[in-house]
Every structure is written in structure tokens, then in C-alpha cells.
């Protein structure tokens, strides 16, 4: 795989929660290198199976991205009103470039309050969603023709290779996770891993996890490892002690399988894979929470890619962490396949 190029393709494909089809097409195409057994379920999750025997282990990442959704088009001015769809951060939207996915893709700019209209005290306040609007440059008539309530909006994606294998990639939450699962499949491609691997790229994580819930019901795995992004330390974060480039984040949380978390740590040590531990006191805030309680319960682990600036257009990840995470997933699959043969 050409990791940077594949990451670029995944991160720049459009797929806001509930309408992931374009991102799904890219994910399917990349997945087809490893299996021809690929389907899309009723909610839009992409499911690919590799191998026919052995423990059924699901490797999961979510396919959807945060975005916005059109609520109205002003009849007089053509300004487009919208709300968020998923946890979009309103602080980074002033004068931001977006695309409205209407009857055709319409480029637009989100309004920004000029300084002369700002009281000094308001300079550091961002507008709430109901005061934001998108400026398409179209007449009201044209705007109404192409744009309708319910249309999704995405921030125009940025993809910039920074220093030290770090990449600024909008929507690497969680397309970098999708890439990680694909890379794990590549590592396992010519091994006798002894498992039936089900790769799941789930829809609708950012709006509550419906995709993972239904996909794991449909897949019925024995075990699962989810991969998502999590917080990496930055100058303005406090109490975050996990770092970019320091390896995969192995999560310990009450709802996850402690046994799996410990096994992942042992394997990372044994294979000399860079890792760091992350601990959640309650839920993990990822699809792992839903997968673990699917049907009669699924032993579930969670690996995270450390990320800066989550839920903004300048999310940063480190390619080394993707590799470490994929290596650890692959090591776990080989370990479980080996247990069967024992």
C-alpha cells in the first residue's frame, strides 16, 4: 500500500454521518486488494471478510466524518443556514471554506463577523450554530435551486505532510483508522494467520454509533478490536499524557475486555511495537462501547491513534502510530489464530 496516498484518498472522500457512500466506495476499493467478499449493510457500513476458518475477529474503524447539515436557504439573500451533524467544533468555522453537497457540489465560505461589529469582549467568542451561515456567492434563486434542507456540508479537507511523518489530515478521525485496518490486512496477507477476519468500516459513529451497533450484530464476531483516534498532548491540553509518534494507544476501560488489553500490551512488548496506555473510567466514547455489548457480548479491545486538534479541519496524526497500531492488530490476529492450532 502507498500509505500516504491511500490516507489522502480516504481523508478527502466525502462521507458525513448517515451519507457515507463516497467514502465507502474508496474504502471498498482499497479493501478489494485483500478480499472479494465485501458487502454494504442496511446502514451503510462496509463489511469485508478475509479467511474462512478460525476465530471470527472483527477489526473495526468508523467510516463517517463530522460535518454539517443544511437547515434553510434564505429566500431573500441566499445565505444558507445549517446545524452540525456530529461534533463539529464551531470555534474553527469563521471564514472557513466548505462544500455544500446539494444537487451538485457548491463551494461556499462560512460567514465571519468583521472586527468593527465585535465588542472587544466578543473577539474571542465564536458564533453559535444558529447564527452561522454559508455564503455561496449565488443569487437566492440559484442557491434555492441547488441546495435543500438535509444536504450535508463538509469543511474542505486539508492534507499536508508535516515534519517527522506527521500529517495534517482533516477527517483522519477516523479514516486513519480505516487505513490502519487495511494496513493490518496487508501485513497478514501472506501469513497463515488462522483467523476469519471481518473488517468493518462502520457508518454513523459521530452521531451515536448506530453503524457499529448494527454491523456487529450482523457480523456476530467472537472478538473485536476497534481503532479510533484519541487525544495527543499539545501546548494547550493539560492532563493529556499520550503523545504523537509514541506508538499505538492501548485502552483500558471497564467496558473493554481487560484480558484483551493485557494481551495487547504483552504482544506489543514481545514484538517491540511502540505503545502507550490510555485509561478511561467509564465509556471509551468510541464504537468499542457498542460492539462490546452486541448480541450476547463480544470481547472487545480498543487501539487508538494519538491525534492533535480532534474535530477540526487540522487534525494531525503520525504515520508511525498507524504502522504500530496495524502491527499490533496483526500480531493479535496471529496470536489468536495460533491459539486455535495449539
Amino acid at each position, binding site marked *: 500500500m502507498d500509505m500516504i496516498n491511500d490516507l489522502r484518498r480516504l481523508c478527502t472522500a466525502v462521507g458525513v454521518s448517515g451519507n457515507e457512500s463516497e467514502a465507502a466506495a474508496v474504502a471498498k476499493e482499497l479493501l478489494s486488494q485483500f478480499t472479494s467478499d465485501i458487502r454494504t449493510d442496511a446502514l451503510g457500513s462496509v463489511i469485508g471478510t478475509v479467511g474462512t476458518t478460525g476465530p471470527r475477529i472483527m477489526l473495526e474503524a468508523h467510516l463517517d466524518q463530522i460535518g454539517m447539515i443544511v437547515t434553510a436557504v434564505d429566500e431573500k439573500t441566499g445565505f444558507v443556514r445549517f446545524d452540525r451533524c456530529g461534533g463539529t467544533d464551531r470555534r474553527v468555522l469563521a471564514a472557513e471554506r466548505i462544500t455544500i453537497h446539494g444537487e451538485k457540489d457548491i*463551494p461556499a465560505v462560512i460567514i465571519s463577523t468583521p472586527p468593527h461589529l465585535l465588542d472587544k469582549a466578543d473577539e474571542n467568542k465564536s458564533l453559535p450554530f444558529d447564527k452561522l451561515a454559508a455564503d455561496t456567492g449565488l443569487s437566492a434563486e440559484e442557491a434555492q435551486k441547488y441546495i435543500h434542507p438535509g444536504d450535508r456540508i463538509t469543511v474542505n479537507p486539508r492534507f499536508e505532510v508535516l515534519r517527522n511523518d506527521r500529517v495534517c489530515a482533516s477527517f483522519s478521525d477516523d479514516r486513519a483508522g480505516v487505513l490502519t485496518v487495511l494496513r493490518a490486512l496487508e501485513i497478514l496477507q501472506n501469513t497463515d494467520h488462522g483467523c476469519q477476519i471481518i473488517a468493518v468500516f462502520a457508518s454513523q459513529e459521530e452521531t451515536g454509533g448506530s453503524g457499529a451497533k448494527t454491523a456487529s450484530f450482523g457480523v456476530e464476531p467472537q472478538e473485536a478490536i476497534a481503532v479510533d483516534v484519541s487525544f495527543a498532548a499539545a501546548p494547550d491540553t493539560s492532563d493529556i499524557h499520550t503523545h504523537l509518534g509514541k506508538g499505538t494507544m492501548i485502552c483500558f476501560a471497564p467496558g473493554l475486555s481487560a484480558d484483551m488489553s493485557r494481551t495487547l500490551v504483552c504482544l506489543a512488548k514481545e514484538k517491540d511495537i511502540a505503545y502507550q496506555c490510555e485509561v478511561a473510567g467509564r465509556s471509551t466514547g468510541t464504537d468499542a462501547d457498542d460492539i462490546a455489548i452486541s448480541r450476547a457480548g463480544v470481547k472487545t479491545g480498543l487501539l487508538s491513534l494519538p491525534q492533535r486538534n480532534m474535530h477540526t479541519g487540522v487534525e494531525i496524526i503520525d504515520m508511525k502510530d498507524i504502522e504500530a497500531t496495524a502491527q499490533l492488530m496483526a500480531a493479535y490476529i496471529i496470536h489468536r489464530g495460533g491459539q486455535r492450532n495449539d
Partner: protein
Amino acid sequence: MTDMLRTLCTIDGTSGHEDAVRDYIIAHLPTDCEHRTDALGNLIVFKKGKSRAKNRVMLAAHMDEVGMIVTHIDADGYLKFTTVGGITPGVLAGRTVRFANGTVGVLGIKPIHLTSKSEEGDLPSTDKMYIDIGAVSKEDAETVVALGDVAVFNEAFMPLGEHKVCSKALDDRMGCFALLQLLNEETSADAYFVFTVQEEIGLRGASTAAFQVAPDYAIVLEGTTAADLPDAQDEKKVCIQGNGAAVSFMDRSTLYPPKLYKLAMQLAKDHNIPVQTKTMVAGGNDAGAIHKAGAGVQVLTVNVPCRYIHSGSSVADMRDFDSVIELTRLLLGALADV
């Protein structure tokens, strides 16, 4: 035609670093004019028109744009900066910037998940922001960036709708583009065309340029703020995009001579050029320095209304630009012969 505007906007030129903009303009000057660059970097062009001007007329637009300058590199390789010109935190957070050597940096922000309810929606002030180039240490960062290096918004030029454009630096490459366009046609009278430096940090270039040219009249071509946005009160909109060239009677730096303001409005009316009054006393521009130069200069400002000015994505309407060109063409002839 917009190819030239696209290139002009895409060139980096924060205040004090206008060289590349100036080089481009010089390369696109017609052969029938004289030009020189002064000590501060102002480009002063003289072009003969059809008739000898009775008065000395100067047209001015500034080459510089707002940006960021690196003030400190910390132990972890993050760059601290200050803004060059006025930029509000809201248009910086979550964007990327670009240095002259191609290095791209990110203006990060603490994830929304980690902010408390009480600080919801609050932006860090610019002095709390930092540029993240992916460096892992001070030494690592210093291989590509040094103190004093400047960065611009890392945004491309794009058309918006049928008539509009979206770009960084429309303030005031719009004005530069207008001057270049006028220079490349047959003008009615002799005139000085001045491309100034350092407007955004206090109208510094215009002051020395006007001193040298010592004009009788000056016309400043600017991109000015248009606040014709939803939820904005009418009296605070300043000007309306699409309603034509915006002419100022007063801003925070200048009281414009009423007879010049009236002349501009009358000429527009007589020639059916869309024109509007810049309605609020807001902002300032090179006219503030020019009118005080030497023994005093009578000035006028003709503006292209720009939304989201001083961001990486300001928006202007090319129809307004066309009105600015038409009106300026007439004003040049009129002021030369008043």
C-alpha cells in the same frame, strides 16, 4: 483576466516582505512607463496619458497583506507568533499557514471534547496560539524556520458563484490588480501609480511615497470590509457586496474633502456606474497617511467591498471591481484637470 488576480493574491507578501509582489507587478508593467523602487520598497510608476495633466494625480494601492511572524520557538518545537496586521482569533484557529520556503504549519486548538462548559465557544487569544509544523524539538524546528520568518494563510484562490472570488489577500491585491489594469490601457492623463508597502502595520509606505510624489490629488484603491451579513443591522453593514464601488466620506484615518466625494458620486451617476457610500466610519487606509504628506493632499478612496476581510477566505464581487475600475478611470481624468 482573473488569472492575474489569482496570481497576485497567491503571492506571499506580508508587511515588510512585499518583494515578490513587487517583482510580479514590475514584470507586468507596460513598456511606456517609468518606474522606481524607493528605500522602503514602494514601487512608484509614472505613465504619460493622452493629455498633460494640469494637476499631479497619484493612484495608490498597497501590496502588503496580513500574516504572522515567528517570535519564539519553544523546546518542543512549537512556534509562537504575533500577527502582522489585524487578524482575529476566529479566522486563525484550525487553519494552516505557509512559510516562504514551503513549510506548512498548523494553528491547533484544544479539542472541543476537552473544553469545559464554561469556556464553550471561546477561542484562545492569538498570544496563546502556536504554529505546529510537526517538529519534535527546537533544534528540529530550527532546521526550517527562524525567528522573524513570516507566514501567510495557506489558502488557494477560488471562484465563488458566478461573479465572486474567494482568496487570501484580496485586501489589497484587488487594488494592485486595478492599478495594473489601468496602467495597461491608454490613460486620459499623466499620472503616478504607486504600489505601497506596510499599509497593514500603520500606513507606513504610503507616507514616504506621497512625500516623494508630492501629488495634488490622490485616489486610494482599497478592499474594504463589507458586513452585509445575516443578523447584521443595516446601519452597520458598511457597504453591500454587488452594489458597486464604495466611496468613503470618512473613515478612522481620513476626512475626505466633500467636493471630491461628491465628484465621485456625480461621475458615477452621470456614467451609470454602480456606486455606493461606505456608510460607517470604520477602518482606515493609505489615504490617512497620504493626505498628511508634505503640505497636504486631497484624497479619495474607492473601495471594493470585501466580506471576511483579513482572513484566508475573503470574498469580493468582480462586478464591484469593474465599477471601481470604471469610476477610477473617470476620476483620474477629472482630477488631472480640475
